[in-house]
């Protein structure tokens, strides 16, 4: 069967679908996840620099031990029961998003990373990218980061701004365009 065609989210995605606390991955069903809590924030910018409000950002990541809460992971029985690995945020009136999460561990064969997807009015298809850490061990040999032309890899590195705070700005197109993946 042919997969159903994608379509834009449009300008009317219900605000109630960004549930309170959906951007905080450090707590799951009232329980505290294991690991180092971090904040990831950034701005999403379109080509003319216009601020984009109510753009939806979703993330998916492994737990502090690098384990995904999913049966495809051979180690998933050992996954942190207090960590879902998924969150959703909307950009505010200044075009900023914020997640509180756990510093991801390195899954086998990968550098520590967080999968990011963007949905918005005028985006005819979901945009997918991957966030890496500026100081992350294993970035040089990560098989996904290695697919990105070397001159653009730096655009996928979250900048450390404090002991537990990282900035990851996303530019949808134009100068400094964030690399997005074809999948």
């Amino acid at each position, binding site marked *: 069967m042919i997969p159903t065609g994608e379509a834009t989210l449009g300008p009317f995605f219900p605000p109630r679908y960004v549930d309170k606390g959906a951007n905080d991955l450090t707590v799951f069903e009232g329980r505290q996840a294991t690991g180092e809590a971090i904040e990831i924030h950034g701005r999403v910018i379109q080509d003319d620099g216009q601020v984009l409000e109510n753009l939806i950002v979703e993330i998916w990541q492994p737990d502090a031990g690098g384990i995904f809460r999913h049966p495809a992971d051979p180690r998933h029985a050992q996954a942190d029961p207090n960590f879902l690995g998924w969150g959703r945020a909307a950009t505010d009136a200044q075009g900023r998003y914020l997640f509180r999460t756990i510093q991801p561990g390195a899954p086998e064969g990968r550098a520590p990373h967080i999968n990011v997807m963007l949905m918005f*009015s005028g985006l005819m298809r979901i945009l997918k990218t991957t966030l890496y850490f500026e100081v992350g061990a294993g970035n040089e040999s990560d098989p*996904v980061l290695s697919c990105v032309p070397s001159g653009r890899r730096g655009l996928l590195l979250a900048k450390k701004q404090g002991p537990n705070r990282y900035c990851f700005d996303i530019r949808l197109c134009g100068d400094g365009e964030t690399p997005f993946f074809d999948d």
Partner: protein
Amino acid sequence: MNTVIEPRDERSQPARIVAGYPQTPWRNPRQPLVKRQPTLSELSGPLEVAKRVKLLGGDIAGYGEHQAIGQLIHLRVRVLDEDGAPVGGAMVEMWQANSAGRYSHPNDDDHAPPDQNFHGAARLLTDQSGSFELRTVKPGAYPVPTKDGWWRPPHLHFSLFGKVWLSRLVTQMYFPGEPLNMQDRILNAVPDVAARESMIARYLPPAAEPYNALVFEHRIVLRGRAATPAQPP
């Protein structure tokens, strides 16, 4: 559990930059998208999102003196993967305009009246046969307020979570026989005719129940398959 993500036929997916849809050139990447071989990270994904967000159910038309104004419809949807296997336990979000073509959303202007009995948001899980049902009212058409704009035909928005990160889908569903379908710049951004038609629901003939609602059925196909390993009998 092995999931296979096949490359998609571009003709079954919308163009990223759409003539006459003025935001699209500012927001869609100009650099070539980067090809990658998916790893475990992209071939896994959140299966329990409903533990983080609140379900709202699929019966959103209201009853009695609180029933929404408009043509009552029942919609039966099956969510399948590329191999035709049902995707059970998948979270589905649906949002739509009211019967006058107005969204319950601060971004919508006052071109049409709100309906205090209709908020147009459903959120539920598919059952083990990949099915779900909505009881709602048929949305009205509305004008897109851009220079040289157009009218959006009646449509429902859907956001679905499959079994893996790469099967996440945001799409829209249309109604059969609507003259505005022909001129919609979003539906017609998909080049292939059969792929466009697969986004249009099917009308079902009247039956005893429900006597007071038009009934439609629809199919949504997500990518990939979480194949269950063979087990000895």
